[in-house]
C-alpha cells in the first residue's frame, strides 16, 4: 500500500477566513468580527511596525550586532491577530519567534534584541507583561502554559493562557503531554500552533499525516484551522477560544495556516531545501497587503495615513538600531548572578576566585 503522506499538507478547505488575500471581507458561519475603522487601522499599524522591527533585527544580525535572529516575516497576522485577542489578565507562553505577540504585550523590542545580542537569556519581566520569556527548547513551554492554567483554575481567576508553538513542535512529546494534561484537567488554555509549513528544512509532511488541527479531536477538545495570514480571522478565532477557556469550556487547538517567508533563523539557508515558486505563491497571500487593500477599498484610510505609518516605522527602526548599538555588555560578575535565589556556597567561592583572578590584570 502506498501511503500519501502529503495529504495533511494539502491546501485546507476548512480554513476560517474573514478577509481574502484581495482584501474582500467574507462571512463565516461560526466566526464573525465587528471592527471599527480605527481598530482596523490599529491592526494595520501593528502589522507594519512588527514587520519593520523584524527587518531591522535581520539587518542588525547581518551587520554583526546580533548573534542570531529568528524572523517572523509572513507570520505577522497570526501573531498580531492572536496577540490582540488577549486580555491583560491572560498569560502568554511564546516560542522564540513571537516578536509580534511581544509587541502586543508592550514588551520593548530592544529587549528582544538583548536576548539575540547575547546580553541576557531573558530580558523582560514576564509578570509585568504577562508574557513569559522566550523558550528555545521546542515545545517545552506548552507544559508550562498548561500548569499555569491549572493555577488559574485553583485561583478561581477569570483568565486564560495561550501557548504558542509551531508545526515542528507538534511532534514533541511535551506538546502532546500538554494536550493530555489540558484535556484531563479541562485547563483554560489555548494552543496556538503557527503552522508555517517548515521546521527548519523539514516540511509539514515530515511531522504529520493529517491536518494538525484535527489532532485535537483525538485529545478530546476542539481544533480549528484559521487562515494565519488573515488578521481578522486570527483575532476572531482566538477571541472565541480564549473566551471559551475563561468560561470553563477547556482547551482549544488553533492551527494558524501560514508561511515562514524567511529563513528559520539568520543561520539558515532555505534555498537548499525549498523552491522559489512556493515563496512566490505565498507572497500573494501577504498578511499586510490584504489589510491595506481592505482599508483602501472601503475608504477607511488615505495616503496620508499610510505615509504616517511608514514614517512611524522608519523612526521606530532608527531608534531601535540606536538603542541596540548602545546596549552595554554585562559585567563579568553577572555570570554568577541569579543562578539561585538563596546563597550557594560553591557559587560564592567561584565568584570570589574569578574576581580575584580578574583583579590580577589590573594596575
Amino acid at each position: 500500500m502506498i501511503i500519501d503522506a502529503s495529504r495533511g499538507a494539502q491546501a485546507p478547505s476548512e480554513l476560517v477566513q474573514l478577509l481574502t488575500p484581495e482584501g474582500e471581507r467574507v462571512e463565516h458561519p461560526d466566526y464573525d468580527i465587528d471592527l471599527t475603522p480605527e481598530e482596523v487601522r490599529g491592526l494595520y499599524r501593528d502589522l507594519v511596525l512588527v514587520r519593520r522591527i523584524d527587518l531591522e533585527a535581520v539587518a542588525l544580525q547581518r551587520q554583526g550586532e546580533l548573534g542570531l535572529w529568528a524572523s517572523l516575516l509572513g507570520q505577522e497576522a497570526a501573531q498580531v491577530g492572536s496577540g490582540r485577542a488577549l486580555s491583560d489578565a491572560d498569560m502568554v507562553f511564546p516560542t522564540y519567534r513571537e516578536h509580534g505577540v511581544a509587541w502586543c504585550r508592550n514588551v520593548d523590542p530592544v529587549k528582544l534584541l538583548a536576548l539575540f545580542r547575547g546580553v541576557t537569556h531573558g530580558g523582560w519581566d514576564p509578570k509585568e507583561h504577562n508574557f513569559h520569556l522566550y523558550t528555545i527548547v521546542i515545545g517545552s513551554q506548552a507544559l508550562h502554559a498548561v500548569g499555569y492554567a491549572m493555577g488559574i483554575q485553583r485561583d478561581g481567576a477569570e483568565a486564560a493562557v495561550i501557548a504558542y508553538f509551531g508545526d515542528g513542535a507538534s511532534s514533541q512529546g511535551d506538546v502532546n503531554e500538554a494536550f493530555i494534561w489540558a484535556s484531563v484537567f479541562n485547563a483554560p488554555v489555548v494552543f496556538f500552533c503557527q503552522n508555517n509549513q517548515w521546521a527548519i528544512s523539514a516540511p509539514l509532511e515530515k511531522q504529520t499525516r493529517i491536518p494538525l488541527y484535527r489532532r485535537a479531536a483525538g485529545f478530546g477538545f476542539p481544533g480549528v484551522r484559521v487562515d494565519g495570514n488573515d488578521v481578522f480571522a486570527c483575532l476572531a478565532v482566538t477571541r472565541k477560544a480564549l473566551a471559551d477557556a475563561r468560561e470553563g469550556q477547556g482547551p482549544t487547538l488553533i492551527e494558524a495556516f501560514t508561511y515562514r517567508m524567511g529563513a528559520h533563523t539568520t543561520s539558515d539557508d532555505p534555498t537548499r531545501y525549498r523552491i522559489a515558486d512556493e515563496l512566490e505563491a505565498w507572497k500573494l497571500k501577504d498578511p499586510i497587503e490584504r489589510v491595506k487593500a481592505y482599508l483602501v477599498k472601503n475608504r477607511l484610510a488615505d495616503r496620508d495615513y499610510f505615509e504616517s505609518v511608514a514614517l512611524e516605522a522608519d523612526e521606530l527602526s532608527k531608534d531601535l538600531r540606536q538603542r541596540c548599538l548602545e546596549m552595554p555588555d554585562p559585567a563579568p560578575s553577572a555570570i554568577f548572578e541569579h543562578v539561585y535565589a538563596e546563597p550557594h556556597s560553591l557559587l560564592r567561592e567561584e565568584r570570589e576566585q574569578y574576581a580575584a583572578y580578574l583583579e590580577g590584570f589590573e594596575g
Partner: protein
Amino acid sequence: MTTLTLARALNEGLRKAMEEDPKVLIMGEDVGKLGGVFRVTDGLQKDFGESRVIDTPLAESGIVGTAIGLALRGYRPVCEIQFDGFVFPAADQIITQLAKMSMRSLGRLRLPVVVRIPFGGGIGAVEHHSESPEVYFTHTAGLRVVACAGPADAYTMIQQAIRCDDPVIFFEPKRRYWDKAEVDLDGLENALPMDRARVVRPGTDATLLAYGPTVKTCLEAAAAAEADSRDLEVVDLRSLNPLDMDLITESVRKTGRCVVVHEAPVFSGLGAELAARITERCFYSLEAPVLRVGGFATPYPPARLEEHYLPDLDRVLDAVDRTFAY
C-alpha cells in the same frame, strides 16, 4: 519525640508543609488514593482534596513541566517521580527549564519546585527501579540536590526543600523507607539547614563520606571497625549540591584519611568531585589518597547480583584498610 519510619516522616513533613502554606501542592503518579507506591503521600488527598494532591497522567515530563507552570503562577508543587529510573523523561524539563529559569529571568521568576525521587537499590527490584542518578542533577547549575538518610532529617529536610525558593531535587533512600527512628515533630526551626553536612559519628582515624542509603552502611562499618581499634568518623553529606566543604575539610584535616561511599557508579560519581576538592583543600593533611567505594562501571545488575554491586560493610572496611596501607 515520635518514632516514625522514614516514609512516614516524609508524609508528616509533607502534611505539615501543606497545612502551613495553601500554595503547596503534591503531584505525581498514584499519589492520591493509593498514597504513592511507597505510601509517602498516604492520606494526603483525603485530607487536602484532589486539587492539592493531584493524580497526574502517566508522563514524567508532563509532571515537571506543569509543575513549572504552577510555580510560575505562585504555587509550590512537590512532584513525585515514582522510581529513579523513570526520571529521565522529565530530565529535559528539569535541566533545560527548571534549573535555568531564575538566571534567565534575572531573578524575576522563582521556581520553588521539589522533585522527590526514591533512589538506590537493595530491594530486589526489576530493572530501572534501583538506580542512583544524582550526579546528572548535581552537574546542573541552578538545582539544589539533597538526600536524606533517616527519618529525622526526612521530616525536616522535606519541609526545608518546600520552603526553599530554588528548585530542589530530593533523593529518598528507598531501602531505608521502613527504617524507624525518633523524630521531633516540632523541630523544624532548630533544624540544621538543608545545605549543611553533619557528623553522624565522630572519629579520629579516617573519615567516611556518605549520603542517603550508604550512611547506615558506613555507620555499621564504623561500629565493626571498633573491633580493630579504628575510630572512624562518619559524615552524612545531606546536600550534594552545594557540598558543605567546610565541614568535610575540617573532618579530613583531622583524620587524614577519607573514603567516599555511594551506590552510584564510582566513575564520574560524586566521589570524584569530593576527592578532587578534598585534595585541593587538605593536601598537606592527607596520609593517603581519597578512596571511593561504589557501583561498578556497569548498568545496575539484576537483583540476584545486586549485593555484589552495592557497597556493603566489608567493601567499606576493605577501602579503609587500603587507606591505612599507604
